[in-house]
């Protein structure tokens, strides 16, 4: 790809962006990504499949996550990691998102962060499956989040 085409695609992604679309997966019910009880505090639990291969577009750009359900204990803190592949084959880990249920009352800060929009979406080729996993400050099992994953398509076209 030559420089003129790269400049044109940059223009299309920034200015003439009429083809860009935003989607979320899974299309239906969210998938719970919870700790498995075997992972120690701040160690990642097993990955959970969010969608199978050939569900997202090829290519697609990972743009963020929206957390629809969060059943962490109050004052528990965690990272959600999104990757490509399936739970049974090698994974490419793409992005970590720090989140929490609540913070200590004395802090005067009680906002619950529900949506993360990535300033620079990550391009994913080949329509692989999408997986997620969490690690959190407590070792309690069976708690976590249920996210929708945000994707963009037709960036630069």
């Amino acid at each position: 790809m030559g420089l003129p085409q790269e400049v044109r695609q940059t223009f299309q992604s920034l200015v003439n962006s009429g083809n860009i679309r935003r989607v979320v997966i899974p299309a239906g019910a969210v998938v719970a990504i919870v700790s498995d009880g075997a992972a120690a505090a701040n160690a990642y639990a097993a990955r959970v499949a969010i969608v199978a291969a050939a569900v997202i577009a090829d290519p697609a750009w990972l743009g963020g996550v929206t957390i629809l359900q969060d059943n962490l204990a109050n004052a528990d803190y965690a990272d959600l990691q999104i990757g490509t592949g399936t739970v049974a084959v090698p994974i490419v880990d793409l992005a970590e998102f720090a989140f929490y249920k609540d913070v200590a009352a004395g802090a005067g800060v009680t906002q619950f962060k529900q949506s993360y929009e990535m300033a620079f979406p990550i391009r994913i080729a080949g329509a692989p499956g999408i997986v997620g996993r969490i690690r959190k400050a407590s070792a309690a099992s069976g708690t976590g989040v249920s996210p929708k994953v945000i994707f963009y398509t037709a960036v630069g076209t």
Partner: protein
Amino acid sequence: MMVMIRRIFQVLVRSDAIRYGTFPTSADGAAALAITIAAAAVAWTFGAWTQIVVLAGVTVETRIVGFTLENFVGALAQGEVEIGTGTAPAGTLLGKFTIVGADVTLPNPIRVPAGVGLVARYRTSTGAADTVDIKLKTQTGF
């Protein structure tokens, strides 16, 4: 100019190599546990710089895009966090942030080169040695 245009294209469109992460990592000890930073027991006085990422722990060019604060201890009527480069107890300021929420995203990410350590410190209005835990949000692959 060509290099600049190519990097903009890589960031916006051909962005396969971009990764979002957090500091500290497991390489910094305590299995990626958030780092506790403490205010001095004097109002509006920073505590010591505290290591978040060990020296040379930033292995590639990295953009600091924000941070999260966890486990506030203390009344914290008002508070500020500073993030810098270096090896504790020394630090060189990158940014000062007044706390208005537990999740902070920078509108203009701060680029740091590979091969530096990262530190943070904390002060509050209370006059007590308040503490809070911090994680940095990062981007790589630019």
